């Protein structure tokens, strides 16, 4: 019997390599390559008056200096607007190198290619760019006021206004017996993967082809984008992702300017060129997220049930919108969480500012939406004097109401329909895990010791496994090795392990014989990418379907060889055998041998091959060796494409202690109940939750992008941008609920982003509970809590 792998805590096959320093990241490659550096704008908004390279020309090791003027054809045009939307009436994207105007500090103006990165930076220091400063628009308020414009041809700095409604929400609020209005804010943070971006391009002049390695979340799309920009047939471009040191959303954006400039320079120079982003570049020229202001009106009955919810919010999209409106669309739809909102209306305005662009960062608009909805729940509980869990419970969608249509259109253009979930059961688990009902005793005990503690919670629903599709290819080699490939990429999530677990069970082969490749267009050309917690759902389902196809093919070939009926055969531990025959029967054949037989040969190159040659195998001389509809090789390709996303959910509870003197905030307990349907590997899911919670804690208590009014990002380093260390991340207690998704063959839902979503909401709830001060803005620092305390005491 093959050991069952699906659902087991299988240790990650990636780890031994990665934790012993044997990973191969972008900067580990291409030691023969020239290196690129960039002169980036020091100004937030300015016209480029002159670029003078005179002082740079005598630096030893200079190979080339490029400005926008050098970019021919489509390279000189703006980068693509990746996700257009009818409401995105004023979508603007940057040029690969700035043309005439810069719109944020860090925008690339000049590209330098040199013999090393050191020399490239020496040259960058000597390039003189003169700017004529323009007024900078920084922050949502300034963008709304529109005293100055980011783009001359975008009135009011408004990229888009979008409304969704299920009825007249404001009328419902007005008619409700209880009403509240809240202003709620979330500040900017960023993905900040420990490995920044990076690109290595090799141009083969004889073959007229490009081989590009890039630290991306979507190699197939980068391939298309490079081919389009460089005016090359797609067939002449291959894109490979090496090990990627984290993405968290920022690497789904493509093509980054450098992703087209480096291949372009490699072709132009006829030499390999590499660029490795450094930390400062990443802070000022990649992407941020989260910055939004929200105005909420809510109406509810005497029991705290929502009757109407009207939300307006303003989304700071930065200088350009290459990734469209995905983040605010997600906020506006996923804000509803596990609740029935009554009549709902949401309107958002997406605004340009002279700051780094905003694109999805793990959670992608959901942390903001969750913060808004959960603040509303706590406010209702406070207003009516109800327990916070009771208000939530009363507003939950019930399990017998699944599937539940929220009446909105989601980020994938499909209806927002929750496929499954049991929110009351999740909440019951959470209350038990954290000891919700016993907390008052703890609070009293702490108070007696002069300590101040509080408890909070937050619930969310997350659309995962967004389409349109992913595929899988599986080939059984003649030695029995199973080679699996899927087109989406890995950034350290453990995809090789998780996908191999699925294939092991579906195909009936030992886990150790399976090798999984991701994100290599030479292996698999059709894919979307790794984002939206979609790998287990999309590629997991795709490789499962593929494995079933290959298994069927193996059975039919083996049936001929064993002179048995397909129905009587099974695949166990890499052997095809008659069902129930056990280990003793001779009526069995290795999958590797099946692979040999699947490929009728004329020539023998080894012993195994000899068994498939034309005089070796018993075959019907009157039928073609490869019949109609058949193909040589024990392999298959299949795709999974769902009609809609599947919706995971979770609930977090947090216990905090706030120092009465110093206002320091300490997380004492962090409890998670998580429902992502069927679990492929609970250990990997929990690892994902741990990482997400760490980022949620960062977003709640530490991280912010500190923009000065002139558009300078003053904390663009890990010294001043306070990503939490391991010492700041609490022990995380996890319980799982499993409500399988009815939408895919495995019953799985996504888990990648879950941990981060309710962080700010739950921690705000706990601090509010400890302090008795209403929290309306996150993140919060000790200094800010101190100022809130003083404001409550009526001191200036």
């Amino acid at each position, binding site marked *: 019997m093959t050991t069952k792998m699906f659902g087991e805590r299988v240790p990650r096959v990636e780890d031994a390599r990665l934790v012993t320093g044997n990973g191969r990241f972008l900067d580990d490659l291409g030691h023969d390559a020239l290196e690129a550096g960039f002169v980036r704008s020091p100004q937030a908004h300015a016209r480029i008056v002159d670029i003078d390279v005179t002082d740079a020309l005598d630096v030893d090791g200079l190979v080339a200096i490029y400005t926008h003027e050098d970019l021919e054809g489509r390279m000189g045009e703006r980068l693509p607007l990746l996700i257009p939307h009818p409401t995105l009436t004023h979508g603007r994207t940057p040029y690969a190198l700035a043309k005439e105007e810069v719109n944020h500090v860090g925008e690339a103006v000049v590209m330098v290619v040199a013999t090393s990165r050191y020399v490239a930076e*020496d040259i960058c220091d000597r390039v003189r760019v003169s700017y004529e400063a323009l007024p900078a628009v920084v922050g949502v308020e300034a963008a709304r006021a529109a005293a100055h414009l980011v783009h001359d041809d975008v009135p009011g700095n408004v990229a888009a206004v979008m409304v969704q409604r299920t009825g007249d929400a404001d009328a419902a609020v007005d008619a409700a017996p209880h009403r509240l209005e809240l202003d709620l804010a979330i500040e900017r943070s960023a993905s900040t993967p420990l490995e920044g971006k990076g690109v290595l391009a090799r141009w083969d002049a004889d073959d007229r082809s490009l081989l590009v390695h890039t630290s991306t979340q979507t190699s197939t799309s980068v391939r298309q984008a490079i081919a389009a920009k460089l005016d090359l047939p797609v067939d002449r471009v291959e894109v490979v992702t090496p090990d990627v040191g984290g993405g968290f959303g920022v690497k789904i954006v493509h093509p980054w300017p450098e992703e087209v400039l480096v291949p372009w320079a490699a072709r132009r120079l006829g030499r390999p060129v590499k660029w490795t982003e450094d930390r400062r570049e990443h802070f000022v020229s990649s992407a941020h997220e989260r910055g939004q202001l929200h105005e909420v009106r809510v109406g509810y009955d005497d029991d705290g049930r929502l009757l109407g919810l009207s939300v307006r919010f303003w989304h700071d999209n930065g200088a350009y919108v290459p990734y469209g409106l995905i983040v605010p669309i997600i906020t506006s739809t996923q804000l509803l969480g596990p609740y029935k909102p009554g009549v709902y209306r949401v309107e958002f305005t997406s605004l340009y500012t002279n700051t780094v662009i905003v694109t999805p960062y793990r959670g992608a608009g959901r942390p903001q939406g969750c913060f808004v909805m959960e603040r509303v729940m706590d406010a209702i509980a406070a207003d009516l004097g109800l327990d916070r869990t009771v208000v939530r419970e009363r507003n939950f969608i019930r399990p017998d109401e699944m599937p539940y249509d929220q009446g909105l259109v989601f980020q994938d253009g499909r209806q927002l329909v929750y496929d499954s979930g049991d929110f009351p059961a999740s909440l019951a688990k959470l209350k038990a895990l954290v000891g919700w009902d016993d907390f008052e005793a703890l609070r009293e005990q702490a108070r007696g010791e002069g300590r101040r503690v509080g408890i909070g919670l937050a619930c969310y629903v997350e659309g995962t496994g967004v389409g349109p599709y992913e595929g899988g290819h599986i080939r059984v080699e003649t030695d029995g090795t199973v080679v699996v490939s899927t087109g989406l990429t890995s950034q350290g999530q453990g995809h090789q392990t998780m996908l191999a677990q699925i294939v092991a069970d579906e195909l009936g082969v030992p886990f150790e014989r399976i090798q999984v490749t991701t994100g290599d267009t030479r292996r698999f050309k059709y894919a979307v990418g790794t984002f939206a917690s979609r790998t287990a759902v999309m590629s997991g389902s795709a490789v499962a379907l593929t494995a079933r196809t290959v298994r069927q093919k193996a059975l039919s070939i083996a049936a001929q060889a064993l002179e048995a009926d397909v129905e009587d055969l099974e695949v166990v531990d890499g052997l095809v055998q008659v069902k129930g025959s056990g280990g003793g029967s001779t009526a069995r054949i290795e999958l590797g041998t099946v692979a040999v037989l699947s490929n009728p040969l004329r020539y023998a190159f080894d012993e195994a091959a000899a068994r498939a040659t034309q005089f070796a195998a018993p075959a019907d001389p009157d039928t073609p060796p490869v019949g109609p509809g058949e193909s040589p090789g024990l392999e298959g390709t299949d795709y999974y494409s769902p009609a809609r996303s599947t919706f995971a959910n979770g609930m977090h509870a947090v216990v905090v202690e706030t120092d009465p003197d110093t206002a320091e905030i300490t997380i004492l307990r962090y409890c998670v109940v998580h429902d992502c349907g069927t679990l492929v590997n609970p250990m990997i899911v929990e690892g994902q939750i741990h990482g997400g919670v760490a980022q949620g804690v960062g977003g709640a208590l530490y991280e912010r992008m500190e923009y000065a009014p002139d558009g300078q990002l003053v904390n663009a380093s890990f010294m001043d941008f306070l990503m939490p260390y391991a010492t700041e991340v609490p022990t995380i207690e996890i319980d799982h609920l499993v409500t399988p998704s009815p939408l895919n063959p495995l019953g799985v839902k996504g888990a990648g982003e879950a941990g981060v979503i309710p962080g700010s909401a739950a921690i705000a709830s706990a601090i509010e509970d400890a302090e008795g001060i209403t929290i309306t803005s996150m993140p919060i620092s*000790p200094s800010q809590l*101190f100022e809130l305390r003083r404001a409550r005491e009526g001191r200036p």
Partner: protein
Amino acid sequence: MKPAPFTYHRPRGLDEALEVLAALGEAGKVLAGGQSLVPLMSMRLSAPAHLVDVNHVPGLATVHVDEHVVRIGALARHSQVEHDAAAYDALPLLRQALRHVAHPTIRNRGTTVGSLVHGDPAAELPAVLLLLDGSVTLRSAERAREVEAASFFIGPMETALRPGELAVAATFRRPATGSGTAFVEVTRRHGDYAVCGVGAVVGASSARVALLGVGPGPVLVDLPDAVRDEPLDDERVHALVEEAIDPEADIHASADYRRHLAHVLVRRALAEAHHRAPGRAA
């Protein structure tokens, strides 16, 4: 984030190091632990033309303890000082403060004397040197001189070290027998520079504190009335501290919060130092 070009020197002895430094003058910069200098160079905020790596100079990785002082050689790493049993017995404040210096990996390379010479106003060790009336031994090819802490720290990232000089040791004076010490901080994350920090020494008839993060450099406040065996006069302490500090706002904290923390942490540090004074009940 790659340094500008520089010439690298690796002297093998103290005399050679001093000769190289003398020849280079203002163009020379000493590399010891490199935990502050190298990041500054990588960000091109510092671009010395010559780097003089003293890590191969023998005889500088010393921790010397006698009845009056603890003397730390130029190449003694923070972690070496932190874990030196004799230094801890003689002067617990060193370990109490060093535990707040960044993280173990940084303390394994960074040097105590280097931290003093770097003169970061938010760093712990300058405050400790001030608090203990310590001094720094500076050597050049021509001469040696001893500079008291009070005159060594001139301003933010500025010390009395002159071009051509190497800080070969720092001397921390042991407080009077029967004193207790403490070092407390509030940081945003473990190991960060302090939002505010306070070191305290409480003796039989004296008490003093040194504060970080509330002025352009460490702020020393003598509290002559705060006597070991008497309850501290909180109002008097508050007034003296209030007079000495001048906090500013930055991205991590408002000036008022820092001022508030200064008073809270002074109280905590004094209480802890008082508690630790030998002969007092545990």
